[in-house]
């Protein structure tokens, strides 16, 4: 039971961290909960479908279907997050201003909300499909208290996600969207780096140095903290050069893109908000 709980916990945690950041970033947006819940539900359905078609995936692309699929899912999430971040940098100030106005639910967020629904769904799908395959195996092997383990794993993983969400909500409204946008940027950069890792594994991309450094002694990939840092800021104890390139390219594209969007859309009086956002993005 504890083996089940532990594996489920680690997979749920990865998805829950992403969902928490997305949920915080869409704080106050009209019908936000429905979108996040819908994303989770779609992700669960997707996870079962992916697990069911695991055989097809495994044999696709001359045996590297799994890597290609994972990289596609991750890069799709990067695109959606990137789009949302750029959209927010032109509309974010209006959003937080409107949120302070009582009653008028923020409708402006809706246009990029569906993008983040997809991000939530993809995160749940990726981690969930592993859980489904794992449970299938455990069930076939006659493990005890399978469902209790599953429940404990989901509960603990979700609890940490809620903890992060609750923590984020304590950030003052003035800085709130700057922080959540910065977190989304780091999240996207990390997902891009992980996508590169899959493509290197499949020999579809060169590694450009298979191991730039090894900081396992400080923070291992397998530790809980290392795993959390992996999701939130893209930490990897032994990154390849190509992973760094993907990471840096995502950071640069979103940072420059956000600057350009602000330049185009924001009146001068709003320029004061720019430095705070930039600092967060660099962090």
């Amino acid at each position, binding site marked *: 039971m504890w*083996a089940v709980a532990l*594996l489920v916990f680690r997979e749920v945690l990865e998805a829950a961290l992403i969902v928490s950041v997305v949920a915080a970033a869409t704080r106050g947006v009209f019908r936000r909960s429905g979108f996040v819940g819908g994303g989770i539900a779609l992700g669960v359905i997707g996870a079962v479908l992916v697990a069911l078609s*695991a*055989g*097809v*995936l*495994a*044999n*696709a*692309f*001359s*045996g*590297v*279907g*799994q*890597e*290609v*699929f994972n990289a*596609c*899912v991750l*890069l*799709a999430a990067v695109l959606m997050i990137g789009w949302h971040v750029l959209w927010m940098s032109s509309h974010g100030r209006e959003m937080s201003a409107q949120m302070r106005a009582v009653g008028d639910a923020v409708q402006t967020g809706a246009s990029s909300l569906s993008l983040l629904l*997809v991000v939530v*769904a993809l995160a749940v799908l990726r981690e969930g499909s*592993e859980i489904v*395959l*794992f449970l*299938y*195996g*455990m069930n*076939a*092997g006659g493990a005890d208290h399978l469902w209790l383990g599953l429940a404990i794993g989901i509960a603990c993983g979700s609890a940490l996600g809620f903890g992060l969400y609750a923590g984020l909500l304590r950030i003052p409204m003035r800085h709130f969207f700057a922080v959540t946008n910065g977190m989304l940027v780091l999240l996207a950069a990390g997902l891009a780096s992980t996508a590169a*890792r*899959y493509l*290197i*594994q*499949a*020999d579809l991309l060169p590694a450009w140095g*298979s*191991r730039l450094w090894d900081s*396992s002694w400080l923070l*291992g*990939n*397998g530790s809980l903290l290392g795993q959390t840092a992996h999701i939130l800021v893209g930490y990897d*104890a*032994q990154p*390849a050069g190509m992973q760094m390139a993907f990471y840096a390219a995502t950071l640069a594209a979103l940072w420059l893109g956000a600057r350009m969007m602000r330049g185009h859309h924001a009146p001068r009086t709003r320029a004061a908000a720019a430095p705070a956002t930039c600092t967060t993005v660099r962090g």
Partner: protein
Amino acid sequence: MRFALPLLLALLVSTPALSAEASAYTLVLKNHRYQPNVLHIPANTRVKIDVINQDPTPEEFESDHFPVEKIVLPNSRISVNVGPLKPGRYGFYGDFHQPTAQGTLVVD
């Protein structure tokens, strides 16, 4: 799910895996254990490792010490490219049966 359509199309036209070419390095999963559980590979070389799962349950070939993460379905095999690695010992495991599925890659 904009990526779904091109992916599906790609799946339809792609050829099945398991090419006949031999791999110098093979791990077999049986009773949720790696056989051998110590595998020697040369240093500073990229090698292909085949993992054959003879169990009726899925497994995930994974390591925290070198980049590899790939699911192996019941009674099937996968190939992954590993390295180049510096000389040393690198642990790997089966994510779905960690108590028993443990192994070490010895790079020399």
